[in-house]
């Protein structure tokens, strides 16, 4: 019974934290209060559900509890009868139909507000991870390699700016959506990549973050069906996430793409990704997310690693580098060249790239394939200094011993 309650709570937390906070922010207009009351509701659930059983619709129970808690708190702090009244009126018709029609909007409202261009990119990501994904301040701090106290201060500063500078809590008007969507895509993709290859910690993949990012991208795609980059980012996430279970072995060690068991890839996710990608490229406005999704599609559709069309992948990277010349893209292009034209060509391409955490590992692999064992070993050792993810470290250590 206890285990059931804990499991139900964990599931609800993973699925619904963002929705709950988003709704509470809309109802109260107070970000801190919304977070605290949502947290309180989860704490109350643990006690009440153990006693009375798990409610039929946990999210509805939590929303009502969090809202009541907010009403109590506002009343106690005597912020003003006016605010309490509007909160009660607004939530009177809090039945499930209303909640379900409004809740997707609430989450998008929170997403667009977190991603407002008046906030720095790192502030947007930090706030989205904390508020929308429910990561603890300590977890967000670890991702950005700062202390918990520093991150707490940054989050306070961001929320303070939203309140004081009058950043609106809303999905932008249709006219403004095109200029606002790229910032949202950037945050969603960072959220996904953090889930896909966690910066630190025991697991390579944080499935909850990947799911949240994919889920939000779906909601966004429904809102702006005409934006090919939104469909592109969704396709990219689906295609990459399809490989999730094959990316680590039974011991939790990273398995590189060419050694993965392709039968373990999620065919349904690949098909869904390819369908999104077809929808996107029909619009003939190819952007960086669609190009990355096209590259992911080359891998997803190759029956074996040896069948991979590396020549096409190189030409897609050439296009991608032209629109997105980031270090990561340039390093990955060198990997593709190493596969298409041999390790020496890959090494030559890598020489001209800027530094990136993956660069030493890529260099090590190319040197290994060239038979330059000593240089490869020292590159693997350097690579080990560049990642705190245990699955990646285990892989590199295994290579170093081989």
């Amino acid at each position, binding site marked *: 019974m206890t285990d059931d309650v804990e499991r139900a709570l964990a599931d609800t937390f993973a699925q619904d934290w963002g929705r709950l906070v988003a709704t509470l922010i809309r109802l109260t207009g107070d970000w801190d209060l919304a977070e605290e009351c949502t947290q309180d509701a989860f704490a109350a659930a643990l006690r009440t559900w153990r006693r009375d059983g798990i409610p039929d619709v946990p999210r509805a129970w939590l929303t009502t509890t969090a809202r009541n808690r907010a009403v109590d708190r506002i009343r106690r702090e005597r912020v003003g009868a006016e605010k309490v009244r509007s909160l009660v009126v607004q939530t009177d018709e809090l039945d499930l139909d209303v909640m379900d029609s409004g809740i997707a909007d609430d989450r998008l409202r929170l997403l667009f507000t977190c991603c407002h261009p008046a906030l720095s990119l790192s502030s947007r990501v930090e706030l989205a991870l904390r508020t929308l994904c429910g990561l603890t301040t300590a977890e967000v701090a670890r991702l950005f390699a700062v202390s918990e106290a520093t991150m707490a201060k940054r989050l306070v500063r961001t929320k303070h700016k939203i309140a004081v500078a009058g950043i609106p809590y809303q999905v*932008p008007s249709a006219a403004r959506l095109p200029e606002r969507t790229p910032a949202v895509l950037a945050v969603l993709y960072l959220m996904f990549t953090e889930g896909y290859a966690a910066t630190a910690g025991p697991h390579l993949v944080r499935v909850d973050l990947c799911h949240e990012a994919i889920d939000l991208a779906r909601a966004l795609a429904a809102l702006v069906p005409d934006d090919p980059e939104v469909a592109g980012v969704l396709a990219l996430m689906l295609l990459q996430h399809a490989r999730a279970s094959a990316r680590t072995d039974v011991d939790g060690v990273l398995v590189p793409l060419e050694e993965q068991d392709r039968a373990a890839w999620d065919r349904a996710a690949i098909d869904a990704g390819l369908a999104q990608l077809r929808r996107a490229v029909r619009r003939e406005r190819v952007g960086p997310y669609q190009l990355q999704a096209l590259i992911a599609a080359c891998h997803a559709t190759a029956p074996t690693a040896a069948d991979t069309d590396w020549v096409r992948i190189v030409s897609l990277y050439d296009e991608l580098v032209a629109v997105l010349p980031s270090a990561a893209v340039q390093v990955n292009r060198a990997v593709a060249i190493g596969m298409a034209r041999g390790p020496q060509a890959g090494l030559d391409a890598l020489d001209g790239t800027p530094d990136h955490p993956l660069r030493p590992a890529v260099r090590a692999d190319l040197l290994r394939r060239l038979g330059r064992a000593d240089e490869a070993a020292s590159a693997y050792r350097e690579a080990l200094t560049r990642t705190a993810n245990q699955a990646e470290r285990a892989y590199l250590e295994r290579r170093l011993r081989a």
Partner: protein
Amino acid sequence: MQYLLLISADEDLAVTRMRDGAFASFDTWIADLEQRGVLRAHVGLHESATATTVRLRDGEVLLTDGPFAEGREQVGGLAVVDCTDLDEAVAIAAAHPAAAFGQVEVRPVRVS
């Protein structure tokens, strides 16, 4: 909400741009704000070389010839607008002719 728009630019560049007619849209900008009833205040300033900076230290008034911050980019105008949110204030700032070659800082006004 009220916002202060702090309009600044490279002063030499501003002179050239003004001569080239970059401020032709200024009258429309002001007229639009007045008609919408959002403009609370607006002033244009003489160049920063005419400024005097005042400090009181140990009871003594100290004057400096020039603006408080040295540099090419100097404030040339101020406006206070009353808007529903930051998005509206940003749209107003972006429509100011100086935004095309200088910048406009948008600061929420403190209400006490």
